[in-house]
């Protein structure tokens, strides 16, 4: 019986397709606005998450404005450390160009190195690269100032050289100098190349090997979340108050402010209006249901004369309203999904939509529809059969 009434409701809706479509419109638009907003927001924030992950959000890179110059002062580490929001910072440079081939490694103990390179880095730069040490410790500012011949080995290089601990004072030959290995780096978040390198203090490297004419120095700064932009602005002045233009600072766009803009301004507005549109949609369904009861009072009377109970007639109107809401919700969902995909394709984003939205849209539609159908259902059950058959 319930299926029959549902079928009658469905037939009623499909016999008046244009009206059904217009009645659905409010629900369709409301659901579409809701789904599109959440869809575009979740797509955008997933994108933000991809582009501005925590690591990149807390990193500032520094480099010379023009190549062939070394604008970094000797006390770069200290100057950076004095800046508000900086956790660690320093300078590093690759030494491949000064003629240190990987084969320059000769283990004190056993094994031969291949494919290793040498990196010169200040203690601040090492710290800012967020290394994880398996053995020993990193060198400190004292070692840098004294120009100690100490080295950190990346895990890969250490393995090739057969060095697995630092307790027995292993040493490696870099160029023709003997360097004491004081630590082994297991992993490095910002400079993964370190795993295949030996890292030595910049001062030692300069003294032992000198600089090439086109030596490239880079600054690496680890900052607190939210400070990247400010540190980028201030660091060039802190390092070169005389020639701030000689340095370039690269900071990621601040993701938190971007996200706030999306969430607060646009989203809450569209959310609010989609709720309003949904309510209007419900009112439209309720209103057209009441009109339909008046307009179809003859049909209702015929059904009643054929033996339909009040509850069956009321049930049909509830079904019709619920079905209208459901179809409206699904149509809105479909349209919104297309919109989100279209936006994503246009921006080369990956469309991301929570599954709950896909479930919620038809559910919200059907619930609103049924609720909106209640007045019409009540009214449909009331009318007088014989009077309405005459009219």
């Amino acid at each position, binding site marked *: 019986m319930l299926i029959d009434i549902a079928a009658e409701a469905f037939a009623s809706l499909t*016999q008046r397709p244009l009206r059904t479509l217009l009645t659905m419109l409010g629900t369709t638009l409301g659901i579409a606005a809701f789904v599109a907003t959440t869809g575009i927001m979740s797509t955008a924030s997933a994108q933000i998450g991809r582009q501005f992950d925590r690591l990149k959000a807390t990193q500032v890179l520094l480099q010379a404005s023009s190549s062939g110059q070394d604008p970094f002062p000797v006390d770069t580490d200290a100057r950076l450390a004095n800046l508000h929001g900086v956790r660690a910072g320093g300078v590093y440079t690759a030494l491949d160009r000064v003629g240190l081939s990987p084969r320059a490694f000769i283990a004190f103990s056993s094994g031969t190195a291949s494919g290793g390179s040498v990196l010169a880095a200040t203690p601040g730069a090492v710290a800012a690269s967020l290394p994880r040490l398996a053995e020993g410790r990193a060198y400190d500012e004292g070692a840098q100032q004294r120009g100690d011949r100490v080295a950190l080995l990346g895990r890969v290089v250490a393995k090739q050289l057969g060095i697995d601990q630092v307790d027995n004072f292993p040493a490696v030959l870099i160029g023709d100098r003997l360097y004491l290995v004081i630590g082994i780096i297991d992993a490095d978040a910002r400079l993964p190349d370190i795993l295949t390198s030996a890292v030595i203090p910049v001062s030692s490297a300069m003294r032992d090997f000198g600089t090439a004419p086109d030596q490239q120095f880079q600054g690496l700064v680890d900052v607190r979340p939210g400070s990247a932009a400010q540190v980028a602005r201030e660091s060039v002045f802190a390092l070169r108050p005389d020639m701030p233009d000689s340095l370039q600072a690269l900071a990621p766009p601040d993701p938190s402010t971007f996200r706030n803009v999306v969430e607060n301004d646009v989203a809450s507005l569209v959310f609010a209006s989609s709720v309003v549109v949904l309510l209007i949609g419900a009112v439209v369904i309720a209103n057209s249901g009441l009109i339909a009861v008046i307009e179809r009072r003859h049909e209702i009377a*015929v*059904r009643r*004369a054929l*033996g339909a109970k009040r*509850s069956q007639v009321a049930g049909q109107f509830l079904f019709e309203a619920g079905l209208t809401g459901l179809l409206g919700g699904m149509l809105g969902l479909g349209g919104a999904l297309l919109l989100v995909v279209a936006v994503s394709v246009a921006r080369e984003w990956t469309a991301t939509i929570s599954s709950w939205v896909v479930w919620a849209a038809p559910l919200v539609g059907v619930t609103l529809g049924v609720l909106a159908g209640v007045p019409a259902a009540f009214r449909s059950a009331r009318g*007088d059969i*014989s009077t309405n*058959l005459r009219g």
Partner: protein
Amino acid sequence: MMLVSAPLPDPMFDAAQPLVRLECVSRHFYGAAPTRALDGVTMTIERGESVAVVGRSGSGKSSLLNVLGLLDRPDSGEYFLAGKETSLLTDGQRSAWRAGRIGFVFQSFHLMPRRSVLDNVQLALMYARAPREERIARATAALFRVGLGRKLNAMPTQLSGGEQQRVSIARALVARPSILLCDEPTGNLDSQTSEGVLRLLRELVDDGVTLVVVTHDPGVARFMRRVISMRDGRLENDPELDGFWRTNADRPC
């Protein structure tokens, strides 16, 4: 033929009681022009009787039919249907009676214009809770019965008036009701198109269907076993028509 139109035996019916018994039934309409559409009607209709109700416009014929068909409630008096006092019935019970036991044919057909002929007929069985396959089968049989076996999928608007009325007769008969109530079944039809409807009604009389037909059409009244004449909401004899009729001459109310 019998298969389609003869009423089903009904365990709810008290066979010892007359099918219809009205006692002092009144129906008044108040408003701008207060009317006594029914004014103390007392009458009995036995099973298998065929009754023509005649009378001037406004005499209360349709009002009588509405009360008989449980489409309307009397203001006073008692209406026993198969021995059961109807004022005590719930909406569900009244609806069940209409769905299974009472068939209606109206002057203006009252078909659903957007539904096929077959749908219009099977809808009557839906509210009698028949399963869909059975509904289709029985509706098809009923439409063949009224000579519309070729128009099952036509829309009502594509049919002539006479054909539409035959659809509505099929719809009224399909649940095999105990009583068939017709309000001017040929009132909207010219003599030519009403012919098929007349023949059909006559067959129903011969089949023993309990029939109450409101009509202005002497052609209809002629073959009914009994003619009731109404005036101002009361029953009276109509000497202009043949047949035997009863009166409520000794009106107790």
